[in-house]
């Protein structure tokens, strides 16, 4: 970068600077396996109306089991079926746990700092409610939407918590066979690790001998220090009515095109 503030880590990698928007978390919640969790509209830009249009961005969802003793496999489903009054987005998510039990999962919603900074009030301040600390701003003349006025936007704030990635891997969809993918090794730590769930919402449908199966990547969680990926089926049905699945897997799609990113991250202590 040519000017402004830049904070690097001990390897010379960028933690944040005033030219690029760091990803900060804005919302936390818990949800029981299989139940829907409404994601507030302000995570999607409801606070950032632009004239007659509405700025919609795509937050990133992270999840981890609440129980320290949990071991299992889980993925995420997203749809627009929320029912919050006054919420024009009404997005909701749920965790699908292969164990089909009553495990509880912690959910974290993160977004780029320019979107985070546009949330009104203090509701997105996940690092505390103090009004002091460190913030980095972009140069002036920036826009967050083609219809917005040019201005200066937050690229980092110590009132938020940045996503710190421990492991990351781009992974293609597999075939109709259960398979595991090694995404790397974690060091032993008590800092809570979270799984980046976005890629697990996509499915791939296979038809074999009159039976269709939807496969998705699931996070295979052994402990806070050991997490991998598992390509495994979420549902099967007699072909061709693969869209007629019922129950837990109500949305069956063949939409896993290209590589999806899977990652393990933490957000520091105090979560």
């Amino acid at each position, binding site marked *: 970068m040519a000017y402004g503030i830049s904070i690097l880590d001990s390897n010379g990698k960028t933690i944040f600077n005033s030219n690029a928007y760091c990803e900060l978390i804005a919302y936390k919640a818990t949800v029981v396996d299989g139940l829907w969790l409404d994601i507030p509209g302000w995570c999607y830009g409801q606070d950032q109306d632009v004239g007659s249009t509405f700025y919609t961005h795509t937050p990133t969802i992270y999840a981890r089991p609440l129980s320290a003793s949990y071991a299992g496999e889980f993925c995420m489903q997203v749809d627009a079926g929320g029912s919050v009054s006054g919420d024009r987005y009404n997005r909701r998510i749920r965790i699908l746990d292969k164990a089909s039990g009553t495990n509880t999962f912690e959910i974290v919603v993160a977004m780029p700092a320019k979107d985070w900074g546009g949330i009104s009030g203090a509701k997105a301040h996940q690092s505390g409610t103090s009004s002091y600390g460190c913030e980095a701003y972009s140069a002036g003349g920036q826009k967050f939407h083609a219809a917005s006025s040019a201005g200066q936007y937050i690229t980092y704030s110590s009132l938020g918590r940045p996503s710190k990635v421990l492991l990351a891997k*781009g992974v293609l969809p597999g075939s109709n066979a259960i398979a595991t993918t090694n995404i790397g090794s974690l060091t032993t730590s008590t800092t809570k690790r979270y799984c980046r769930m976005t890629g697990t919402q996509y499915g791939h449908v296979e038809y074999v001998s009159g039976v269709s199966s939807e496969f998705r990547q699931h996070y295979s969680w052994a402990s806070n220090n050991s997490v991998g990926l598992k390509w495994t089926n979420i549902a099967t049905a007699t072909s061709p009515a693969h869209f007629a699945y019922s129950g837990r897997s109500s949305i069956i799609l063949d939409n896993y095109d290209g590589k999806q990113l899977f990652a393990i991250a933490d957000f520091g202590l105090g979560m």
Partner: protein
Amino acid sequence: MAYGFQQRDSNDNVVVDSSAPVQTISQIDSGLYITLYPSGFGTNTYTYNLPGVTSQTDLEDNYVFNRTDAGGWNVFGSERTHSVTYVSAGVVRFQWNGSCLTFLGSPRACTVFDAVPNTFDVYAIGKTI
């Protein structure tokens, strides 16, 4: 810590400490709109300057092209995403990655109507940018 930057929350928990390796996610572009056509029917590649990219593996593991149009949170059906490959240091190339099929899924000849538009936000993970 002996030097650097440290962020603590209001309960004095360490959130960020620059004296150890830290990989954060930075958005480096948004609203990147690319329309590509099947070969023979228009532009089917798009060259893009991607800061810091050094290899195909680096591209796959440390960058995210998150679709923000229907593909990003699409719950209604499949839409093709462009493939992206490493070209050289700081440069990648998008390519049309569609398929031309009949309604019943059988191969058919492509046409100009098989063009695929994608809109992306671009993120870097743990890079010097």
